[in-house]
């Protein structure tokens, strides 16, 4: 997004307006993320952790993952840190297990979501979980969403990338 804004002349508002597609209109961002993601197919996740800022973001992500808030006292960990759990019949990946994080990240998102009949990005998945948590709309590409993504992505290192994924 930085390059789109700084070099290509897009505005942040343009990008955000087009962040999630609907049945009437596809999203260029969803298409772009899927295209770029698929360019790494066959390679292994290899997120660096060399710069202080990378580590800081990762630690913030870890903090946010466990942070309980809202009228239902949920954190990401409430639903994603135990084995074999479900919300109704929806199986919940245990993201304390590196193997499961690898599956979620390197073969998961962006994903074609059958229930939504379109491709969705990790940004949308996080938006959706945040919505279930009864919190206000999660800002698109907000530092908070990037911190959560860094936390998950780094822990998925080693997973073989095969994108886009397919999800319900």
């Amino acid at each position, binding site marked *: 997004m930085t390059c789109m804004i700084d070099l290509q002349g897009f505005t942040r508002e343009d990008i955000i307006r087009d962040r999630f597609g609907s049945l009437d209109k596809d999203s260029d961002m969803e298409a772009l993320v899927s295209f770029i993601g698929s360019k790494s197919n066959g390679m292994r996740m290899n997120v660096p*952790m*060399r710069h*202080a800022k990378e*580590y*800081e973001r*990762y*630690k*913030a992500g*870890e*903090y*946010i993952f*466990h*942070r*309980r*808030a*809202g*009228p*239902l*006292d*949920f*954190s990401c*960990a*409430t*639903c994603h*840190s*135990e084995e*074999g*759990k*479900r*919300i*109704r*019949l*929806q199986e919940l990946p245990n993201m*304390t297990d590196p193997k499961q994080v690898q599956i979620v990240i390197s073969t998961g998102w962006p994903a074609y979501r059958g229930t939504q009949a379109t491709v969705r990005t990790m940004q949308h998945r996080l938006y959706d979980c945040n*919505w*279930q948590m*009864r*919190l*206000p*709309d*999660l*800002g698109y590409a*907000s*530092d*908070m*969403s990037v*911190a959560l993504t860094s936390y998950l992505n*780094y822990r998925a290192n080693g997973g073989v990338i095969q994108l886009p994924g397919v999800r319900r």
Partner: protein
Amino acid sequence: MICKKLLPCIALGLAASCATFPDAPNVALSAEEMIEAAYAGAPDVLVKRAVQDADQKLCSRPASEKLSSEEAERVTSSAKASMRYPSSGKLAGDWKAGEQLVSNAAGMRIRDGRIEQVNENGALCVNCHALDPKDLNVGNLGPALTGYGAQHGNSDAVIKYTYEKIYNAWAYYPCSNMPRLGHNGYLTPEQIAHVVAYPVDLQSPVNRK
């Protein structure tokens, strides 16, 4: 600037050498700033939801960092102090009204800055618990409650425990994954009384073979 000193922290594999970098208070500070910014623009009443109370803060540690017994005591005693009961004094209502509530998961979700419109918030129980043995579309974040009344009986003590468990689950299990539905104002005391009747009443499907 969060990190005043840039230690050469090459990889998390060397975490021991940089255990204090950035330290926990600074991580919290920068993460809290990110959270505030992520919800910027939403109405204040909605942004307030993301602000933690003291007990939520204590309950936000990774599973590996256990609460001390004093901390656990603080959570349970503040939960006990939070209890409110229906003005009628009746802690078990109508199981049929409870049945409608337990499988309803709608309420309080926010999209594009607006709260979804519902007549009343649902109780969400079935998202996490099995209740009616015939209903297989149930979650398992919490233990199965099928046959609850048949097993525990429907004494005043069982009714009071069940009511308080739903009103504020942390009174009996500090930092449980079960939400504090009454304390948080998600369900009213009257709604909770109806929900109590559903697992406890011996006529309810929960207790049928």
